[in-house]
């Protein structure tokens, strides 16, 4: 096989970076909301601060990073070139930032106007992403497991977005009749499982063996996980809307998540490269978090959790799994992209080779800084989980999350500053 990839297929570095650099800002805002609201935030899943937090993290951090990663990965994994990547990426980013801010403001008590603004902004951002990436995947010349899996994840996002927009319409125009509790449960299930988990899994098929130097995931898991989880979600949706029992589908989903987590932990334990770094520890933590969230979800089916612990599965999932895995991925992907783009510019500058040596990945994001990011994250997670049992700790947890996201943000800003400094050096050497 002879591959044909041209330079124009990779988007400019600014396209993924704008998403990656914005995510910590929303993370800091989420920490601020928790520090401000304190124990009241987690009194139930319906409190305004809990809903604002969920969307600041789910859209502002998780979806933000996943959008940037999709713009970057689509050309590399699927061999698809995104036409006008800078314009489309910029528009998607601006709409997502404004829409997330409007939605959070709406939950935190702003006028219904905020919800009315959030609907077209978020519909535009996610609709644009779905259209661009969906079209790209449909035309993809490479049709491996990750490309097929991305289609399932993207359709999960489409369902979650549709349900979310219906719910936001209900907030903006309160006359709309709505089975709010059932719709919210389904919106949450599709967003966290059909979108976040599926995209993390299909990206993991590629990045875990590559960056952590493990063997491949079993082919049957790569082929089956996404369609099986999608069908379980469809079953859950049908059962919920028909008023039938939902526990069989929920159990299946929890077992699928736990299976993916355990398989990843097995691969990581048997990796070929023995050195442990912060990224590996983030991945390990994330998979333990996912397994714990699945167990907590299963436990809540058997024994109703006390009200204070009702949020435990969601907290373990979002903070213990999704935020950890995003941190672990960024630690590898950002230095790699900086290295790659500097190499490309070096080759395009005829007089420079020999007089300019690009920094290696470790210099872009040194391990001590990555360990600081891991430490601040682990502290914030520990205080948050403790806060489920001792709500008085929740204000402190919010402050710790501000610190964790500030550390992530500073590491990313430092990598970008180094990139620009190296570009200037390269221009001087030419």
């Amino acid at each position, binding site marked *: 096989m002879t591959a044909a990839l*041209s330079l124009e297929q990779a988007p400019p570095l600014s396209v993924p970076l704008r998403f990656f650099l914005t995510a910590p800002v929303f993370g800091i805002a989420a920490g601020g909301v928790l520090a401000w609201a304190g124990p009241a935030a987690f009194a139930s899943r319906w409190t305004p601060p809990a809903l604002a937090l969920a969307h600041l993290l789910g859209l502002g951090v998780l979806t933000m990073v996943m959008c940037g990663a999709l713009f970057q990965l689509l050309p*590399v*994994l699927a061999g698809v070139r995104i036409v006008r990547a800078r314009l489309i990426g910029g528009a998607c980013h601006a709409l997502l930032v404004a829409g997330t801010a409007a939605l959070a403001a709406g939950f935190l008590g702003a006028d219904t106007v905020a919800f009315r603004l959030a609907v077209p902004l978020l519909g535009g951002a996610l609709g644009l992403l779905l259209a661009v990436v969906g079209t790209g995947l449909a035309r993809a010349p490479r049709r491996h497991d990750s490309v097929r899996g991305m289609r399932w994840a993207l359709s999960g996002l489409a369902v979650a977005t549709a349900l979310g927009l219906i719910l936001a319409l209900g907030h903006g125009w309160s006359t709309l009749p709505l089975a709010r509790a059932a719709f919210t449960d389904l919106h949450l299930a599709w967003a966290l499982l059909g979108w976040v988990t599926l995209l993390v899994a299909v990206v993991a098929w590629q990045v875990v063996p590559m960056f952590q130097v493990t063997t*491949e995931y079993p082919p049957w898991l790569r082929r089956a996980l996404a369609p099986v989880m999608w069908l379980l979600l469809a079953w859950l949706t049908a059962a919920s809307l028909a008023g039938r029992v939902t526990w069989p589908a929920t159990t299946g989903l929890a077992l699928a998540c736990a299976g993916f987590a355990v398989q990843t932990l097995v691969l990581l334990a048997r990796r070929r490269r023995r050195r442990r770094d912060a990224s590996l520890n983030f991945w390990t933590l994330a998979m333990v978090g996912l397994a714990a969230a699945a167990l907590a979800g299963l436990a809540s089916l058997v024994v109703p959790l006390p009200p204070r612990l009702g949020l435990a599965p969601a907290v373990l999932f979002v903070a213990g799994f999704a935020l950890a895995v995003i941190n672990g991925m960024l630690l590898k992907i950002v230095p790699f992209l900086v290295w790659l783009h500097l190499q490309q510019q070096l*080759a395009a500058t005829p007089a420079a080779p020999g007089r300019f040596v690009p920094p290696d990945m470790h210099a872009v994001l040194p391990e001590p800084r990555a360990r600081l990011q891991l430490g601040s994250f682990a502290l914030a997670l520990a205080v948050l989980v403790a806060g489920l049992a001792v709500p008085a700790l929740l204000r402190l947890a919010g402050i710790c999350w501000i610190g964790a996201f500030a550390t992530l943000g500073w590491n990313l800003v430092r990598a970008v500053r180094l990139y620009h400094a190296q570009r200037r050096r390269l221009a001087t050497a030419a």
Partner: protein
Amino acid sequence: MAAPGISLDLRGLPPPEPMTRILDELARLAPGARLRALLPHEPLPLYPLLEQRGYAWQVTALAPDRCELLVWRHGDGQATPDDA
């Protein structure tokens, strides 16, 4: 038939080490010679870098987690594989 070339087994190295090794070794590739590298997966981000530096390449999947990359200077008739 190509002149003796460079052979590398780069499985077990995290990115971007396989790519840096290949780019470093290519600098000492003799005329008429090819570089042969064993990799755990197709090095997609490497291709634009090879193209920019004037190299041609061919990839063959040997197993699900092993592929062989052949690289030679573009237009080097002696180094170009017969089936390229």
